C-alpha cells in the first residue's frame, strides 16, 4: 500500500506556520493526551497535523501510546485510515472507545509488540512516548518490524531553555511543556535531537524526514535545532538491506 521508495521527496515542505493558523485547522487541544500530560501543557498538537500529512490515505496505522485516540480518530475521519491504538491508561482507553477507535490496553514496557506480525502496519506512530518507555531500543526495533514506516516525536531536552535552566538554576526544569518534577515525571529517558540521531545510527535505522517545533511554529529541521527545537518528529524506516532482525 505504501512504498516510501516511490516517494523520495518528503511530502511536506511547508513553511513554518503560526499557532493561530494551526488552531484553525481544528486540531483538538487535548492537553491530557500528552504523555505525562497535566496542566498546563502545550495547547497545539503540531505533530498531529504533521502526522496527518505524512500518513497516506487508507493506510493501516498503529499508534503506540495513543492517549485518548484523537489522532487516530482524526486520521480515520480525514484520511480513511484503518486505526489501531495501544494505551495503558484505563481512562484514556475509555475515551478511545467512545471515539470508536479500536484500542488494546497494554503496557509497552511489557514488550507487547509480539501481538503484531511483521510488517502488519503501514505506519507505526510513537508520539511523545519514546521518552517514557523502559527499553527504547526494543520499542524502536519492534516498531520498525511491525510497521513499514515509523513516526517518532519527542520533547528535545537539548533545547536552549532547558540548558539555560540547568545552567543558571541547577535544577531540572519545570516548564509548560514539561510540567513535572524529576521525581514524578513519566519522561524517564531524557534525550536530545542529537542523541536521537546517534541512536538511529547505532540501531541502523534510516531517517527519512526530520521536523522540529519551536515557538509555536514547525517545519523541516534546521542545522541548529539540537539547540532551538522544543520538540522533534522523525519519519523512520529500516533500511531495505537490513530487513532481518
Amino acid at each position, binding site marked *: 500500500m505504501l512504498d516510501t521508495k516511490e516517494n523520495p521527496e518528503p511530502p511536506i515542505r511547508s513553511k513554518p506556520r503560526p499557532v493561530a493558523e494551526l488552531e484553525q485547522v481544528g486540531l483538538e487541544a487535548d492537553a491530557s493526551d500528552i504523555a505525562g500530560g497535566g496542566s498546563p501543557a502545550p495547547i497545539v498538537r503540531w505533530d498531529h497535523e504533521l502526522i496527518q500529512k505524512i500518513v497516506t490515505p487508507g493506510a493501516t496505522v498503529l499508534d503506540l501510546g495513543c492517549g485518548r485516540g484523537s489522532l487516530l480518530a482524526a486520521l480515520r475521519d480525514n484520511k480513511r485510515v484503518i*486505526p489501531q491504538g495501544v494505551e495503558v491508561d484505563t481512562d484514556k482507553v475509555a475515551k478511545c*472507545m467512545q471515539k470508536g477507535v479500536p484500542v488494546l490496553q497494554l503496557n509497552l514496557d511489557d514488550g507487547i509488540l*509480539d501481538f*503484531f506480525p511483521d510488517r502488519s502496519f503501514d505506519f507505526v506512530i510513537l508520539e511523545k512516548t519514546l521518552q517514557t518507555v523502559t527499553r527504547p531500543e526494543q520499542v524502536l526495533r519492534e516498531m520498525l518490524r511491525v510497521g513499514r514506516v515509523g513516526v517518532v516525536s519527542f520533547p528535545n531536552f537539548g533545547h536552549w531553555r532547558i540548558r539555560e535552566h540547568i545552567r543558571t538554576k541547577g535544577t531540572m526544569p519545570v516548564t509548560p511543556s514539561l510540567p513535572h518534577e524529576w521525581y514524578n515525571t513519566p519522561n524517564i529517558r531524557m534525550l536530545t535531537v542529537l542523541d536521537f540521531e546517534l541512536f538511529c545510527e547505532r540501531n541502523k535505522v534510516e531517517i527519512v524526514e526530520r521536523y522540529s517545533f519551536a515557538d509555536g511554529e514547525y517545519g523541516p529541521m534546521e542545522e541548529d535545532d539540537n539547540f532551538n527545537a522544543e520538540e522533534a518528529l522523525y519519519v523512520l524506516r529500516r533500511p531495505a538491506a537490513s530487513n532481518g532482525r
Partner: protein
Amino acid sequence: MSDSSKPTLKGIPVVDTELRQSKYDPPDSPSSVGYTSPQRMQVADENDPLRLECGIDFFPINVEYETYGALSANKDNAILITHALSGDAHAAGWSDEADRTKRPWRSDRPGWWDSMIGPGKPFDTDRYFIICSNVMGSCYGTTGPASTDPKTGKPYGLSFPVVTVNDWVRVQERLVTRLGIEKLVTVCGGSLGGQQAIEWAILYPERVQSVIVLAATPHLMAQGVAFNYAGRHAITSDPNFNNGDYYGQNEPDKGLSVARMIGHITYLSDVSMTSKFGRRFQTSDSRGFNLDTEYQVESYLRHQGESFAKRFDSNAYLYITRAMDYYDASEHGDGDLIKALAPTLCDWMVVSFSSDWLYPPSGSEQLVRALTRTHKAVTYVALESPYGHDGFLLETERLMDIIPSFLSTLELRGKTKRSA
C-alpha cells in the same frame, strides 16, 4: 478495617460488595425491567435431536429463557447474554413467580445482572432485545440431570450425557433461530459465559456482529481444573450422593456446600479477602481454642456454601464444572488458537480483571494476541480490580462506561475494518 475510611490495598480502593449489592433497582423503578417470568421452548425432539459433542443424539431439550425489551421489526437488535457456572436465565428484573417455581431466593434480589440490563442501562432494553437462557445440564429450567428422563420416568441423574460449552451454544443457536433472529448484535458473558461468547464467534461467524468476553480465557488453567476436581470430589464423597441418584431423598448438600466454598475462594482475591475479613473473628475478640467456625472468613464461606446447596443441584454442579474443564477454544484449530479463531468475523471486546487468578489477564491476553496476529478487530480492556474473578460482576461502574461505548461505535468501527 470497617472504619469510616475507605480501605485500600495495593493502592486499589476496595468497596464493600454487600453494600453495592444492596443497591437494587426495585421493580417499579424506571431503570428496572420490572417483573419477569421465564419462558420455555423445546429445541430438540425425537425428529430433530441434537448431536452432542460426546456423540449422543439427544432429545428432548427444553430451554428456559427470559427476554427483556422488544424485538425490532427487522429483528436486528437482539443481544444474547450468557451466564456463568451457577447462573440462570433470570438475568434482570424481579421474578414474579419465585414461589411457584420453588426459587425463593429470587424474591429478595433481582436477576444476576440487573445492574447492567434495563432501560437506560448498558444493555438498554429501550433499544435492544435481550435474551438470556439457562445452559443445558443446569438446574434452572433447561434440561439437565435433575430433569425427568422420558424413557424411565425418573430423573436422569448420572445417566445424563456429559455436555460441553459447544453443546450449550448450539442449543442457544436453536433458540435464537426459532425466535426468528438471524444475526445478534452481540453475545456477552463473563467467566464460563465469556467462553460461550468465544464459542459463538467461532461456530457462527456470520451470525454475531460482535462478542464481549469478560473474565474468560481460551481455556481453564490446570489450577482451575484442580479446584473443580476437588469440588466434585467433595460432592461424590458425600454419603448422600448415592451415585447421583439422590432425588427425593437426602441430597449431598454437605459435599455441594464444600464444593461451593472451594469455588468461592477462587472467585475472590487475596486483596478482597483481606479487605473484607482480615483475620477478624466472627463473635469474640480472641481465639476460643476450639475448632468451630471462628473467623469471619470461615463464617462467610460457610454461609455461601450452605445457601448455595439450598438453591443448586449437586449433579448439575458436576456437569457444569466438567464443561468448564473441557472448554478449549483452540480445539477448533487442532490446538492452534490462531487457526481456531481464523473463521471469526465479529468485532471483539475482551475485558480482564487484574486480580483474577481463575481466568487471569495473561489468559485473556492469549486470546487477544491470537486475534491481533490475524488482524481481527479487537478491543482489549485490562481493568485494575481488587475483586478477583468476581470483578466481572462487581466492576459495574467500569463496565457501564465501556460496554455502551463499544456497542454504540460498532458501525463506526465496522466501516474501517481491516480485511484480514
